[in-house]
């Protein structure tokens, strides 16, 4: 059995390293959700094949809050989808690790080479939520066994499209779809509760027809358990409100919205990595 605490720590280390080299990008969200990504790719929550990344029967992980991509890149690399070394190219010219994740169906003349394991082009908030609903609908139409897990951020609940997508998921009874909402209480310009409150989130999600769970997203047992519980509701889409600490694991970043959209300097990175070790 893989030690998920240790895996999450490895993911956090790679996140800090790649962002520092990139000199830009988002730090707080990726650090906060490293435990979820460890559970997904190392805890057996999803089916995938690293040598056949777009295998038909794989489970789909849609990252709607695309700015979290460093954590998914790190998890994919550590899981073996591509060399860990490649993480150093984040945001650099010619890289497959674009500043926001790209899923592109190949065509002649395209200047992008697909980073394996990425399922959606993400960044503008709300879009991945709908894309995930579309995928889950297709899976249901074809009576497929695969499932869709969509990660969206708490500030993404301010975006109208997100709710359009939820109501459709409920209408079509998409039991093969789970939204994991990262509740870290920060967004780019401040604390979420001040920028635009989203409460009562649980009641709103329930009213929109989702089966709602609340967990501590920095606790692996709770993450693993909630997906087990979700299986009890095969005909209803699930929403997991996952409370996390923004910047988790690095004391001077934790809970501080100023780390939403910036990368550490090399001195800050040194301190952060020391803390993570």
């Amino acid at each position, binding site marked *: 059995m893989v030690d998920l605490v240790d895996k999450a720590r490895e993911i956090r280390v790679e996140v800090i390293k790649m962002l520092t080299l990139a000199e830009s990008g988002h730090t707080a969200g990726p650090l906060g959700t490293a435990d979820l990504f460890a559970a997904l790719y190392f805890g057996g929550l999803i089916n995938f094949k690293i040598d056949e990344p777009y295998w038909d029967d794989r489970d789909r992980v849609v990252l709607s809050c695309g700015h979290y991509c460093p954590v998914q890149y790190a998890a994919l690399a550590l899981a073996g989808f591509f060399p860990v070394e490649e993480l150093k190219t984040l945001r650099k010219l010619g890289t497959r690790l674009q500043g926001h994740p790209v899923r592109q169906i190949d065509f002649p003349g395209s200047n992008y080479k697909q980073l394996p394991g990425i399922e959606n082009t993400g960044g503008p908030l709300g879009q991945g939520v709908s894309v995930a609903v579309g995928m889950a609908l297709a899976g249901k139409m074809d009576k497929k066994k695969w499932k869709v897990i969509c990660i969206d951020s708490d500030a993404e609940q301010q975006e109208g*499209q997100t709710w359009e997508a939820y109501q459709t998921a409920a209408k079509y009874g998409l039991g093969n779809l789970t939204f994991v909402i990262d509740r870290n209480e920060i967004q780019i310009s401040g604390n979420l509760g001040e920028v635009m409150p989203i409460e009562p989130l649980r009641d709103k999600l329930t009213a929109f027809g989702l089966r709602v769970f609340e967990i501590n997203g920095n606790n692996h047992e709770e993450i693993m358990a909630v997906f087990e519980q979700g299986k009890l509701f095969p005909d209803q889409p699930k929403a997991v409100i996952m409370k996390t600490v923004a910047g988790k694991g690095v004391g001077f970043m934790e809970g501080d919205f100023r780390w939403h959209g910036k990368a550490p300097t090399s001195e800050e990175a040194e301190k952060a990595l020391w803390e993570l070790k």
Partner: protein
Amino acid sequence: MNLVSDIINVERKATREGFGEAMVLLGRSDKNVVVVTADLGESMRVDEFEKQYPERFVQVGVAEQNMMGISAGLALSGKIPFAVSYAVFNPGRNWDQMRVSVCYTNANVKIVGGHTGISVGPDGATHQALEDIAMTRALPNLMVVAPADFEQAKKATMAIAKHKGPVYLRLTRPKTAMFTTSTTPFELGKAQVLRVGKDVTIFACGGLVYEALLAAEELKGEVEVEVINIHTIKPLDEETVVRSAKKTGKIITLEDHQINGGLGGAVAEVLGEKWPTKMVRMGMRDSFGESGEPEELLAKYGLDKDGVIKVIRKII
């Protein structure tokens, strides 16, 4: 070209009807074809598809942004979704979703925008899409198709389903002249020389192609007008455009759309680089439309046969 033999006395049917008929055929021939709509199934003529293939009909309600995203998700899972609504909303309201989830992703989504142009009529300017060609033409990876009549809409629908990659299909509401026939050839990306002339060329798209043909017919003997149907605005058939410009040396573009950024813009860009030619762009001149009957509106804004004749006489 196998057009109807009598161009003056023709039957009339809307391009949306041709689209609707083709969708039923496609539903039968390809099980991956899915329709996604935002409460406008009946007026976009996909109600028959819904009746025959309810399990492949997705109704998202009045939520066009979501419709576009869901279509992208369906396409990424092997479906061929047609995202269907009025063009003022689709792509008017969901352009960002079209840009990122569909075009950048190169997802195989067919975006169908209905009720384009002032020929929408009584609903008024809010519902008359006059900017959709400009909005779609600016996006990489997206093909832009505006069929000229009922039969062509049917063929275009069948053709874009076969094309791998995102396409925008521009449709119209009123019954318009059917001047092509079931045997008129149609090939995506290939402009159609409907009438050969030497004095002036009209590049037109959509329902106004017919007005150009009428104008050319009326001026027969006086001015020899070449009429070219640009049903595929992107990628533009540059070769045909430049060849005709070299021949006649005088160009008119005609569209039920703003003159900025639409067909006129596309032709001007190509000729500006390759063969600068005297040119008049006909369309809405940087203004919104208004309520009225389609024919009244086309006459008021100078986009009917008489308006075209006036411009031809001026440019000659």
